[in-house]
């Protein structure tokens, strides 16, 4: 099977199939045979799909793209765990060596009311973009920037901002949360921008707008269960949620009403 340590495995898959957004879904069983333990989980699904196409059946639809854990496309519940058994890894970074030969594996889409199923294992996560849209940015129109080294950022602050900015927007935090909350996603952006001097002018209005949009999209509230940080492929800390709560409280107590002409938003 190639590879240095590769061995062949046989697996039984129970996969969620759903024809479309309004259709009723069901589990279908597939056999995955002769899979290399060096293959990634998605490459295992590729092999199953090749077999389905050869039979003239529709392949299992799933989201994927970069296959190196950075684009945030892949989004599978594997045996009930968002992104499967490897901590700090996206679905595409899970390799079959993490499973036992002969194992049965259940594969489902993210389950959250704010993420409707498009087809099979593909869900619609555009709600996350709408949270960014209302405030997950620093307003910096092109052309007006001063020299980069005029803004000093202490290394610990830059490091903490980067830790939070590592979020890949996959939505595992939402899928793992019993409440279907997007708090880890939102707080990661609030923390990234709030740690930096450039992010200060909009800090209050940012957190208020993003939290409001989170509610608007139908995400649940946060009960600090901590499931999100367990599922996060980038190991983003739940401390960011505390920071968001702190910023939110500070903002609602101090935010002044905006006057017209105060700039675009």
């Amino acid at each position, binding site marked *: 099977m*190639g*590879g*240095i340590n590769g061995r062949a495995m046989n697996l039984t898959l129970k996969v969620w199939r759903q024809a*479309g957004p309004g259709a009723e879904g069901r589990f279908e069983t597939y056999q995955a045979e002769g899979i*290399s333990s060096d*293959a*990634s989980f998605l490459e*295992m699904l*590729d*092999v199953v799909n*090749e077999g389905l*196409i*050869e039979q*003239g*059946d*529709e*392949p299992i*639809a799933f*989201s994927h*793209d*970069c*296959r190196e854990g*950075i*684009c*945030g496309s892949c989004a599978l519940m594997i045996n009930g765990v968002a992104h499967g058994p490897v901590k*700090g890894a996206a679905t595409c970074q899970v*390799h079959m060596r993490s499973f036992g030969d002969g194992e049965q594996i259940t594969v489902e889409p993210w389950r959250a009311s704010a993420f409707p199923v*498009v*087809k099979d294992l*593909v869900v*619609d*996560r*555009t709600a*996350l*973009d709408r949270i*960014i*849209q*209302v405030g997950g*940015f620093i307003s*910096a*129109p*092109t052309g007006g*920037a*001063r020299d*980069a080294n005029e803004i*000093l*950022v*202490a290394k610990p602050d*830059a490091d903490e*901002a*980067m830790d939070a*900015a*590592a979020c*890949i*927007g996959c939505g595992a935090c939402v899928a793992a949360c019993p409440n279907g909350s997007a708090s880890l996603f939102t707080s990661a952006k609030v923390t*990234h*921008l709030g740690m*930096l001097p450039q992010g200060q002018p909009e800090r209050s209005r940012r957190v208020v707008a993003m939290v409001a949009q989170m509610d608007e999209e139908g995400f649940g509230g946060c009960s600090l269960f901590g499931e999100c940080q367990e599922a996060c492929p980038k190991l983003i800390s739940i401390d960011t949620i505390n920071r968001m709560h702190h910023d939110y409280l500070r903002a609602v107590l101090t935010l002044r009403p905006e006057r017209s002409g105060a700039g*675009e*938003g």
Partner: protein
Amino acid sequence: MELNSRTPAGPIEQQWDRARFEYKLVNPANKRKYDVIVVGAGLAGASAAATLAELGYNVHCFVYHDSPRRAHSIAAQGGINAAKNYQNDGDSVRRLFYDTVKGGDFRARESNVYRLAQNSVNIIDQAVAQGVPFAREYGGLLANRSFGGAQVSRTFYARGQTGQQLLLGAYQQMMRMVGTGQVKLHTMHEMLDLVVEDGVARGIVVRDMRTGEIRSHSAHAVVLCTGGYGNVFYLSTNAKYSNATAIWRAYKRGAAFGNPCFTQIHPTCIPQSGEHQSKLVLMSESLRNDGRVWVPKRKEDCAKAPDQIPEQDRDYYLERRYPSFGNLAPRDIASRAAKVVCDEGRGVGPGGLGVYLDFADAIKRLGEEKIRERYGNLFDMYANITGENPYKVPMRIYPAVHYTMGGLWVDYDLQSTIPGLFVAGEANFSDHGANRLGASALMQGLSDGYFILPYTIGNYLAGVKGGPIANTGAAFKAVEAEVDGRMKRLLSINGKRTPDSIHKELGRLMWEKCGMERTREGLTEALAEIPKLREEFWHNVRVPGSENDLNQALEKAGRIADFLELGELMVRDALHREESCGGHFRAEYQTEEGEALRDDEKFAYVAAWEYRGDDQAPALHKEPLVFENVKLAQRSYK
């Protein structure tokens, strides 16, 4: 077809200033009368969409992902170059310009490259203003690292996720403009064709990937920021969706294709592990700052564990062959050198297709903690994929297709040979010549999007009448019908082979005959084999499902159909270019030492190919390259 580069007159240092002054402006109150379509939201697309919207144009951005943040720019790891000279080590705009022209083996247009180097400094300012969390020194200043092909430290980085952070910066600016309504975002919409009416680009035809609906969108200008075409090779470091359809359709509508054979093979990728392999993963070139590349001196040692091979039996071949650049030799050179030692039977790992990248000396010198701080996420990624610990055992790496320098031909304004059609980022051919330097792709994408297109599109629009444009004319209807017919045809073949099986066959063929080393004989064979494979595809492919909902097999089949045509053009271009330059290495043209041998007398030009119909060979047009600021010389990194 006439190729006019529209390079401004005057000394190179003043050309961009002069152009910007001479460009016509659109009155602020009139900007809202113009619609601009941007296809793709990677670095080039998101930065262009955001900036054009800030100026007041109505921007429509189309992406095939569910979110614009997923474009493949996100995967760039190592960094972005800029001539800031913050390290006081002798950098300047002129030096970055020089390094880029030389690095590209003298096959890029000087004026474009100079402007790129000028814009580089503004990009860093812009990104920092947006909150991009670049690496910092303890005093709070920005940190830099070195990258291949340069002897100064000019690369800015955000751990090993620089592409991600720059893309999120551009994405956030764009989403801000989505919030104001100035950008209309169309997610999960794939551009399947370009509409040209009265000789100018008027719009695009897209497929809504959720519902299968085929629809036209019109605009006063169309911008393609759709990335490169490395996935012609099936296995590459590109994301799985990355494809050539948008630029290929534009080519077939009249846009010239520049230097299609210029492909970059990146030296530091994780070797293939088996037949199941769906893509290759890159390890950032920055690793070569501290890692030493070697293979055993003797074939017999290749099967031994690396720690069983004593120092004197190791060949640090990059340090040996290129003493002044050593492990930081440019990508094309490092990749070919790896191929040479593997061809000699001295490769390591499965199939002998690998070389060691060893950090033992660096760990001894700096300590494991320092190495972890610099490359921790890359080491983790390697361990995750291979199951080996690179802190203890040297990494195994092998070259893989990574980037395409070729792309749609554009003039100085980034406009293609179709008026109103602009092309930016990896999708165009400009700036990198025959080989791109590390950390220069991010720079180019953002230079194009933030700082060039907003000026040049304005200049174009100033000469075009504003106001609504119908998307119901005969030209639109005809293209829609063609696209729809193509979908139906793909679904109706009902043959025996999966789309991927044919794609893999094309990939192997391209890798063997149009990959790291090319010969007249191999290319001639490929030119005969590709049409047969295309025939096989159109008679024997099987695409299940319907056209009326999400159908990933159908999406894939459409992209492969275009790769099967583009592959042939790449081979044709490689065959015609009877010289070696950069990533294009023709075995017949090499120096006694095995280095690329250019032929500046005959080939100092951009090859721009014009489509003339499926049953006719494309026409070759030449844009001569004139070097007034950099002296043509054989590249030396010794």
